[in-house]
């Protein structure tokens, strides 16, 4: 049994213009201590799905599915039981950290409060632990920063403080939502370093939500790619990056800007993701897909094992294990006539830009922080 098992999670929003299905039958699981990435464009439903795990949706409604954490279905828990889990066993660090902190209370109080919510501690103990947490997330002079208000923190420090709040009760699962959005590149790099430390040094599982493939590539063991509320591809990070089996994933990879690339312009995926009421028929991606054929507009492809072509979502979700490389494209069931003719070439770093790194050791991340988010680089 995995730590977190999400099955067929379906979330709807009710708007003036009709019902919007923001998350459409998403299933995945996360093992204890594992770091899993959830990737997709903004509006794909990844943040909504993450919030729904802890019942933190403001206006949407979970209409189907199960979320099992340690064997309990979180969606059926009473609000009191759910509250015991929030911030204690599962914690979320939200994006847009400046707004995610309450401007009226000190940063320290907002961390200490999370500790006091779940443990009976003295105020001094909570304070000391909060200072230690600030130190752990890399805030200099944590003891004097404890009494600072959020407006006295930089954006990067706010994001660290948000992570400190999430870490307050040593959660088993940490969900990090777009930790690098809106931060400048060097601050992004520092934060990613922090996340890497967190995933390396504990038993804690991390669900990393990002629109940025570079961030996910650096941090995660497995990746789920979400498009228009559905998982279109999943698999171990290396398989997914070296052999993307869904044209959307390939498109995302192709759109990562690189320095010294030699190409005239970036490939980008044309069109926009369907986010609202009216949706295309068949495969949600087909209007933007260069390889789309008639079948794509007719039939919605299932998520299948890319090696065997058998569906992975039927019956027991973990029949093949979560590490199966699966994709939802007609190509893998043999329904595409012309196939997908993109190719991923691995360009040796030494050929390319002479940074001289042979990059054979997966643990070597010495240069990874330079500009990780803007290069499709795997190490």
């Amino acid at each position, binding site marked *: 049994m995995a730590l977190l098992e999400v099955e067929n999670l379906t979330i709807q929003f009710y*708007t003036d*213009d009709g019902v919007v299905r923001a998350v459409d039958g998403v299933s995945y699981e996360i093992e204890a201590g594992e770091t899993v990435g959830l990737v997709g464009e903004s509006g794909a439903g990844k943040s909504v799905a993450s919030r729904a795990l802890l019942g933190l949706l403001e206006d949407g409604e979970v209409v189907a599915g199960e979320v099992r954490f340690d064997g309990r279905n979180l969606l059926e828990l009473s609000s009191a039981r759910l509250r015991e889990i929030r911030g204690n066993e599962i914690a979320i660090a939200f994006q847009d950290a400046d707004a995610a902190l309450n401007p009226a209370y000190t940063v320290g109080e907002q961390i200490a409060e999370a500790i006091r919510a779940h443990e009976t501690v003295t105020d001094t103990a909570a304070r000391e632990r909060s200072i230690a947490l600030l130190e752990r997330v890399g805030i200099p002079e944590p003891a004097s920063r404890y009494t600072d208000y959020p407006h006295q923190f930089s954006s990067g420090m706010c994001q660290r403080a948000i992570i400190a709040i999430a870490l307050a009760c040593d959660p088993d699962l940490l969900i990090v939502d777009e930790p690098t959005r809106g931060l400048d590149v060097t601050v992004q790099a520092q934060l990613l370093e922090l996340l890497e430390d967190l995933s390396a040094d504990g038993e804690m599982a991390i669900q990393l939500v990002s629109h940025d493939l570079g961030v996910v590539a650096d941090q995660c063991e497995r990746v789920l790619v979400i498009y228009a509320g559905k998982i279109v591809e999943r698999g171990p990070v*290396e*398989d997914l*990056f*070296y*052999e*993307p089996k869904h*044209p959307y994933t*390939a*498109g995302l*990879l*192709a759109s990562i800007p*690189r320095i010294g690339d030699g190409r005239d312009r970036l*490939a*980008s*995926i*044309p*069109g*926009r993701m*369907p*986010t*609202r*009421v*009216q949706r*295309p028929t068949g495969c949600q991606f*087909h*209007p*933007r*897909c*260069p*390889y*789309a*054929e*008639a079948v*794509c*507009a007719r039939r919605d492809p299932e998520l299948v094992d890319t090696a065997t072509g058998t569906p992975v979502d039927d019956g027991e979700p973990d029949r093949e294990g979560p590490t199966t490389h699966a994709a939802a494209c007609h190509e893998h069931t043999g329904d595409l006539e012309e*196939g*997908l*003719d*993109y*190719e*991923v*070439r*691995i*360009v*040796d*770093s030494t050929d*390319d830009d002479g940074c001289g790194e042979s*990059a*054979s050791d*997966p643990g070597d991340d010495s240069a990874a922080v330079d500009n990780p988010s803007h*290069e*499709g*680089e*795997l*190490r």
Partner: protein
Amino acid sequence: MTDREPTARRGRLRVEGFESSTERSLEDDTAWPRSVERDREQSRTEGSVGRSRSRWRDIWRRFRSDRTALLGAAIVAILTVLAVFAWPLEVTTLGYRITLQPFALAPYDPGELYVGPTNAGPSLAHPFGTDWAGRDQFSRVLAGGRYSLSIGALAVALALCVGVPLGAIAGYVGGWVDEAIMRVVDILFAFPFLVLAIAIVAVLGQGYWNVVAALVITGWLSYARLIRGEILSVREAEYVTAAKALGASDRRIVARHVVPNAVAPVIVQATLNVGTVVLAAAALGFLGLGLSPDSAEWGTMLADGRSSLLQGHWHITVFPGLALFAFVLAINLVGDGLNDALEPRLEDGESRTAHRGSRTHDVERRDR
């Protein structure tokens, strides 16, 4: 795409063959429904005719679905009709009497004395009873709407005529002109509304037009502040900077960007202010500082309400007060409904007012 080096090999990735062209796509990209957000954004920023027409349709649709606002609108309409048709409206000029409105819904002449016993309670003949001079209260309450409604409408309209241009000049010209106008506004705001109105009546004397004048002098301030704030915030907005960079003239910017954005808060403010002004006029009447004491104005009718109450004549107080309450409540319902209909963004949690900070806005939308 099957034969490939083992993936343990690390290095840079290059995806080849994934072209960004849409040549092979089955549908044209334009066939896609554009997101609602983008539409809304455009209707706000462009303000073009077609878009704004659909915007007003949306507003009307939202207003129509607000039941309490519709109820308010209905009450206002009914009270207006009653006030207009309560008693014939005549103008006398150069010896000629011109009848503008010949109908009479009221059973008695509201000014005629001793149409019944004095201080009588409600009866079939006099549903609201009679006052100390034997005048029919029902007729007086019906006709009394004329004063309250016309004072409310006139004072607000005139205050708009003063406040909007001054606020626009202050916001647009800036510099010492802005300083001067806003300092005057600050100074007049230091006097409580009614106290200032009383002081003005003390200077000007009583009477219909003097009451209107007092209410205009106190009423234009909030519009000036509102418009000025709106212009300043629009001037700083990115789309205006962009329009300027593209060479749009000032007049064009005002017409296309400032006006459409400022209209909504001004309408709401003006509607709510009608209620405030009517209450203030009635308060002046109650204090004996409004119209002449025998006018059938709702507030003035209450002027000796205290002494008649102490004698037990409750009906003299209750009915004019109820009429006043009903009208002001109805106007406020309409104003609230307009507010919700004009600013649905508040519901989405992305209202402009929220971004601008609630401070000044809430103070300016003063409902007294």
